[in-house]
């Protein structure tokens, strides 16, 4: 039993590393026009989309396994979030690879991505609540208000400086609302993530820290990726597309790594 679990985790680790490396290589090749590749069409697009899907499929499988093993509400939320992300990426892959058409924006993937982000935020917040009643002395209540102020202060400033000038007041179509909704959801992810960062610092030399640090890194990559997406919705340069692709690819890999580390710790 233990042997098959080890084999499963080794296989997942290998698949995750391969998909991340291959996807990153193709993103970089496409951004510099290597081998005539482009990340928005042809083989470049297909490989990057499939690599992202592999990372998310692994994240979903590993998160469901973690939820079954830990039986906590936080991991059930995280598993739901990972599954919704995998479904959303499947919709994108279907458009890009099987229908051969450009993905419309908005598409069926967007509600799944937004729902996934909210589920991940709920997972991280629920973990903090579970941590607060676990008997570990962490003073979460005192930290909550300070971090709440810091995150929403920084978030408002970021929005005002970066996104507000892009919005003429009369244009509030679905596209604009959705491209703003993504960074807003990222802020919801960031608050529990910042609290987690503080909390996990207390677990300095313990393996539990690695799990929640990976989740924090994932949330940060999502935030940067979504900001780039909102800022360069139209006419993004190949370099910006590459940066966006790398943020999402590595973010999805981070999501899978979070569950992988949790399974590794709890086996």
């Amino acid at each position, binding site marked *: 039993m233990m042997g098959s679990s080890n084999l499963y985790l080794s296989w997942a680790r290998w698949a995750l590393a391969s998909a991340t490396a291959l996807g990153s290589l193709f993103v970089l090749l496409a951004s510099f026009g290597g081998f005539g590749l482009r990340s928005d069409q042809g083989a470049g697009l297909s490989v990057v989309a499939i690599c992202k899907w592999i990372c998310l499929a692994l994240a979903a499988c590993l998160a469901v396994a973690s939820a079954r093993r*830990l039986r906590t509400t936080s991991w059930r939320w995280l598993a739901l979030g990972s599954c919704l992300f995998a479904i959303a990426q499947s919709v994108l892959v279907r458009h890009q690879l099987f229908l051969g058409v450009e993905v419309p924006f908005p598409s069926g993937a967007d509600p799944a991505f937004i729902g996934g982000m909210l589920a991940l935020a709920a997972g991280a917040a629920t973990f903090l609540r579970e941590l607060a009643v676990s008997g*570990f*002395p962490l003073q979460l209540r005192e930290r909550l208000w300070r971090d709440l102020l810091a995150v929403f202060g920084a978030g408002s400033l970021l929005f005002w400086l970066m996104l507000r000038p892009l919005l003429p007041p009369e244009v509030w179509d679905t596209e604009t609302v959705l491209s703003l909704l993504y960074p807003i959801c990222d802020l919801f992810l960031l608050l529990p993530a910042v609290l987690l960062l503080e909390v996990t610092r207390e677990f300095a030399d313990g393996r539990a820290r690695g799990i929640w640090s990976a989740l924090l890194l994932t949330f940060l990559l999502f935030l940067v990726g979504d900001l780039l997406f909102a800022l360069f919705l139209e006419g993004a340069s190949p370099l910006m597309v590459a940066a966006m692709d790398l943020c999402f690819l590595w973010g999805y890999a981070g999501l899978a790594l979070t569950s992988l580390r949790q399974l590794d*710790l709890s086996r």
Partner: protein
Amino acid sequence: MEPISPIARSRLDAVVVGLLGPVVGSSMAQAAVEGHCRILEIDGSEISAEKIEMLIDRLRQGMTIFVGPEKAQELATALRDELSLGPPPNPAT
């Protein structure tokens, strides 16, 4: 069953930090023992076996969110073994 003699606080600290430290970090493991001892009103250098049982149970519950119920139970058993407590008492008897 032979009564279990009280356990020295320093030994308890060392055992808990040794077993839980790799998971939650040594300073957090130490802080958890101190926190639970305060709640259970454990003071002095020696702790009764009954209080130790309560402490282990609280630590097991706390570890569940990090490693799941099975591994938390394994850690609790390992704590008992290290402290030479034997199997947990049966609440029915």
